[in-house]
């Protein structure tokens, strides 16, 4: 699998843009100004309208018109009632601890996988991008293993970890694998994207290899690394859910499958939406951390 990389803030040459004195962007008053300005634009309202239409369509198709196949699916009203009830029919709502337990397990697994894939993927990716010799030996192996879909590893993952590690290990491993591919690939791309000129300048200035690694390769690849982490977290969730559906005991993926087997359809939707929200939050957090670490891409770019 090749993951599309959205070009991060490009290091664009500012041609004739004098910026003397204080930075223009900043300050609470300016943020408020932008907020007020955006409220007068049609865009957010149309967006809101879009979501409302979606909910409306869902409601109409499932509960109101009772169309043939749609009426088997739970509608928004049923889901919302269940989700907010103190004594839910199937034991899952915002008031039940079980709900949060499932969320915890899924999040915990993703965090573990994310940790390992960052710790292994970023350094490996940096080396592969920087040193051709290393890449020549390692990239072929990666490229042969990578096309195998992560979920095809399920049986082998179960076998490998059987008896050696807990039942958690296969699930975390599969999530790790997915995130790892994205991380290492994008990190490598990030290093390759660094303009040769920066390496030359660093060499002129008398850098030793470790300086080049920590002061050129790593910061230069950082935008791509964060893109990779974002993509990685996304595909990590994807694999986690599948792995949980196949062999888990707790977690949101397990909850979905279990509820299906027990015909607790409203819970399916609750779990799906929770997945969506949490997945989005993970992405947003990574983006936030990235923008904090890469202040140089914030200032000065339009």
């Amino acid at each position, binding site marked *: 699998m090749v993951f599309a990389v959205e070009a991060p803030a490009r*290091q664009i*040459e*500012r*041609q*004739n*843009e*004098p*910026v*003397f004195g204080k*930075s223009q962007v900043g300050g609470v008053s300016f943020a408020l100004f932008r907020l007020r300005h955006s409220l007068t634009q049609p865009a957010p309202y149309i967006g809101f309208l879009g979501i409302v239409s979606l909910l409306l369509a869902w409601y109409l198709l499932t509960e109101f018109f009772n169309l043939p196949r749609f009426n088997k699916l739970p509608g928004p009203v049923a889901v919302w009632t269940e989700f907010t009830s103190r004594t839910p029919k199937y034991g899952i709502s915002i008031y039940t601890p079980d709900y949060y337990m499932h969320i915890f397990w899924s999040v915990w697994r993703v965090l573990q996988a994310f940790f390992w894939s960052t710790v292994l993927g970023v350094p490996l990716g940096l080396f592969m991008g920087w040193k051709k010799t290393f890449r020549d030996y390692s990239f072929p192996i990666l490229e042969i293993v990578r096309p195998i879909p992560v979920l095809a590893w399920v049986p082998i993952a179960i076998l490998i970890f059987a008896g050696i590690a807990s039942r958690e290990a296969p699930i975390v491993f599969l999530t790790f694998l997915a995130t790892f591919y994205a991380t290492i690939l994008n990190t490598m791309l990030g290093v390759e994207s660094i*303009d040769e*000129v*920066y390496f*030359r*300048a*660093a*060499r*002129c*200035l*008398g*850098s*030793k290899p470790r*300086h080049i690694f920590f*002061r*050129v390769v790593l*910061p*230069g690849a*950082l935008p791509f690394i964060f893109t990779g982490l974002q993509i990685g977290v996304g595909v990590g969730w994807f694999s986690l859910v599948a792995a949980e559906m196949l062999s888990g005991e707790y977690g949101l993926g397990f909850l979905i499958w279990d509820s299906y087997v027990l015909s607790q359809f409203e819970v399916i939707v609750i779990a799906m939406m929770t997945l969506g929200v949490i997945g989005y939050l993970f992405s947003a957090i990574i983006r936030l951390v990235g923008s904090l670490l*890469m*202040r*140089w*891409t914030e*200032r*000065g*770019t339009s």
Partner: protein
Amino acid sequence: MTMSAGVAGTRADAGVGASGAINIRNVSKTYDPLGVNVLAVDNCSVDIAAGEFCVVVGPSGCGKTTLLNAIAGFHDISQGEILLDNKPICTPTHTSPPGADRMVVFQNGALFPWSTIISNVAYGPTVQGKLSARDARNQAQNLLAELGLPEIGDRYPNELSSGMRRRVEIARALINDPTVLLLDEPFRAMDALTKSVAQEFLLQVYDKVRKTVFFITHDLEEALFLADRVLVMTTRPGRIKYALKIDFERPRNFHMRSSKRYLELKSEVFSAVREEAAKAFEAGERELA
């Protein structure tokens, strides 16, 4: 007034302990980008005296950057040799790695976008272990002030104008006390107004430090304004076709651009270059590195 290439220019006031004389002897360089041999530079020879401000002009793709890269140590040469203060720094078998003795200022700028200005300027001494991080920063601060650059130490390069960035880059090069300064069309992307200010800045710096400068440009006015000697290169494969001594007094100012002598020199260089430029225009090949 024709001067044969290879005549060493001398400066009466080269200064005590002058160093930085470059000798380029019969240098040729062949590229092999797509399996097709391309002769970029062909039997180039020139002697540059210590402390001389030497400008190379020529049409795009004629090999001037190749020469600069060879002096800097970024790639090797196929034939000939390059000497710095009588020590070979570039031969077909050995290339001295790039170092702070031959600092380069690049065309589109190479300030690290992820470091602040002060970090950028302090980079050289810190990394070479010559100064502690704090001392390097102090020295960088002093140098920026000395060069008349405002309080921009904590900014990132993206926030500055191109003129400012280029000046910072010159500071970053200077702080390392290089033997030779190599500038690869540093003002190319600037508009004419910013360019003239940047040129005067460079000349002020040069007057202070009197280092050997190897400057590449395609702008003839710039060459005449800055140089002690102008070298004209032919189209690919490049050869030094013509050397012209610019005997204007330093410090220079823009008034000289309207003097009679200047106009004479200009028409001389112009006709020499124009022939080559027309050839390059006809050839229509894409430029190499």
